[in-house]
């Protein structure tokens, strides 16, 4: 008897989006299953971040559908998206910390916006979140005084403090040194294992993918070109994916 396939937490179908006259998403479809970590790979400019913003409801497609936990979000009024968005945390490429708030205020922000008023409880949860990312000693610092890696860790603490069901990461290790990258990867893996958080990671860091991904999707020319296990991905003979994996330049060699 076959196992029932896990439910999809996010299901995107046939997303089409033009930006600045260019077709960025050309019918992209994917399913993010409950409890898994899905890495979305692709070349720079192939629409990975745009896809992520569509999955989070921050951008709306010209056509197609996005369902989050069963709720359709395409065409839904911005004000009605609030409760749906609170089901997931989003880590932006540069952290997107509020630069007029210090670290503590940034991390406490989601709790305050959800109406929590007990300052003792807020402080305790902020500390727990910052401990999880190793930033508890930087409570009073302003974002401008943090390094790129520290900013991402604080942003991660902000994303997890409200205990979301799903985490979306937009290039969490871009621009970081190998040790900082390994630390972020460890955090992503920890969250997934400890809290069974469903995760989607946009990246083009192959080492990170090996460490964190349960499945891999390869985005090419605005479509999901491949989706499958890491083993199948790294063993692929598909010329486009092979070129990406081998890091070869655009023009194929003459021989």
């Amino acid at each position, binding site marked *: 008897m076959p196992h029932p396939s896990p439910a999809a937490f996010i299901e995107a179908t046939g997303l089409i989006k033009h930006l600045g006259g260019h077709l960025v998403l050309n019918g992209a479809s994917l399913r993010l299953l409950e409890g898994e970590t899905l890495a979305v790979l692709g070349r720079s400019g192939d629409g990975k971040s745009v896809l992520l913003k569509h999955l989070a409801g*921050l951008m709306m497609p010209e056509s197609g559908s996005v369902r989050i936990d069963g709720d359709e979000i395409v065409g839904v009024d*911005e004000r009605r*998206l*609030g409760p749906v968005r609170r089901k997931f945390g989003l880590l932006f490429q*540069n952290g*997107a910390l509020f630069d007029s708030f210090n670290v503590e205020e940034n991390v406490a922000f989601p709790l305050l916006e959800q109406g929590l008023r007990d300052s003792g409880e807020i402080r305790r949860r902020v500390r727990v979140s910052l401990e999880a990312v190793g930033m508890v000693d930087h409570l009073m610092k302003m974002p401008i005084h943090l390094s790129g890696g520290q900013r991402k860790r604080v942003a991660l603490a902000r994303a997890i403090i409200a205990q979301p069901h799903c985490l979306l990461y937009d290039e969490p290790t871009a621009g970081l040194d190998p040790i900082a990258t390994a630390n972020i990867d460890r955090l992503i893996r920890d969250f997934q294992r400890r809290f069974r958080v469903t995760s989607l990671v946009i990246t083009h860091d192959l080492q990170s993918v090996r460490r964190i991904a349960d499945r891999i999707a390869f985005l090419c020319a605005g479509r999901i070109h491949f989706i499958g296990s890491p083993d199948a991905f790294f063993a692929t003979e598909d010329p486009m994916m092979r070129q990406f994996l081998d890091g070869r330049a655009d023009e194929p060699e003459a021989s």
Partner: protein
Amino acid sequence: MRDKKITGGGRTLRHGYVVTCSLVFMVGLIRNLGSWLIGRLAYLGQLAGLADQIRISMLRGKWRPRLLGEQLVATGFGSQLVVITTGAFVGAVFGFQIFAKFRGYALESATGAMVSVAMCRELGPVVTALMVAGRVGSSMAAEIGTMKVTEQIDALRALGVHPVDYLVTPRLLAMMVSMPLLIAEAIAFGILLSYVVVVEGFGVPVAYYRNHTLDSTNMEDVSIGMIKGFVFGIIIVIISCHQGLHAENGAVGVGRSTTEAMVISALWVLIVNFFLSLLLNIVFPYSSAA
């Protein structure tokens, strides 16, 4: 005969060329005018959309007293020095010019009345609005624009917070409270410095000056100033926040939004002031005593 034909043909060709050029010019003109008009209408539509979002936010949004307090300090308290200085010197120079002209007709004691009514009805609200557009409006556009290009507004949205609720509504409420008060200050200091210049500087009798001023200025004049301030405040916030929310292309885009916020707000203040003056002069006509 052949020459004539050739000449006639040349004329026809030249005529055809002129007609074609005229047509191309006309088509281009209509196209450019049409696209400019559509652009302006689309812009007005966006402003109306933002105004509607603010309305919804005021009715259903979350109440954020801390943000309102911060904005009251930034908008109202922070603008006082600029507004008082501007109002005072506009009143002083206006008083001096009126005095210089009226002296020729032995009407110098009426200077106070002129300054007072002009400051209340026109100069106070307009000058204050222009200064606030420059100081506060551009700052709003820059702050919100920077948040836009650094994805902080997307971060707000991702956390389930509507950007209009969080960024625009508190600013609008603060401006609606601050502007009438700032205008009142500008008017008061304008009248005061004009008094100093005309009475203390040129020796116009205090009693005449004061009596004329008080007799000529009534609650209607003050009300006009306050109403205009309220309306100008709304215009400045909606235009400036709209510019910030639509900023793109990094630092250059934020710079452009900031400049446009100031310029567009100032132009709208001046245009709306004209129509408001017409309307408010019907609602609050000059009394015969004045």
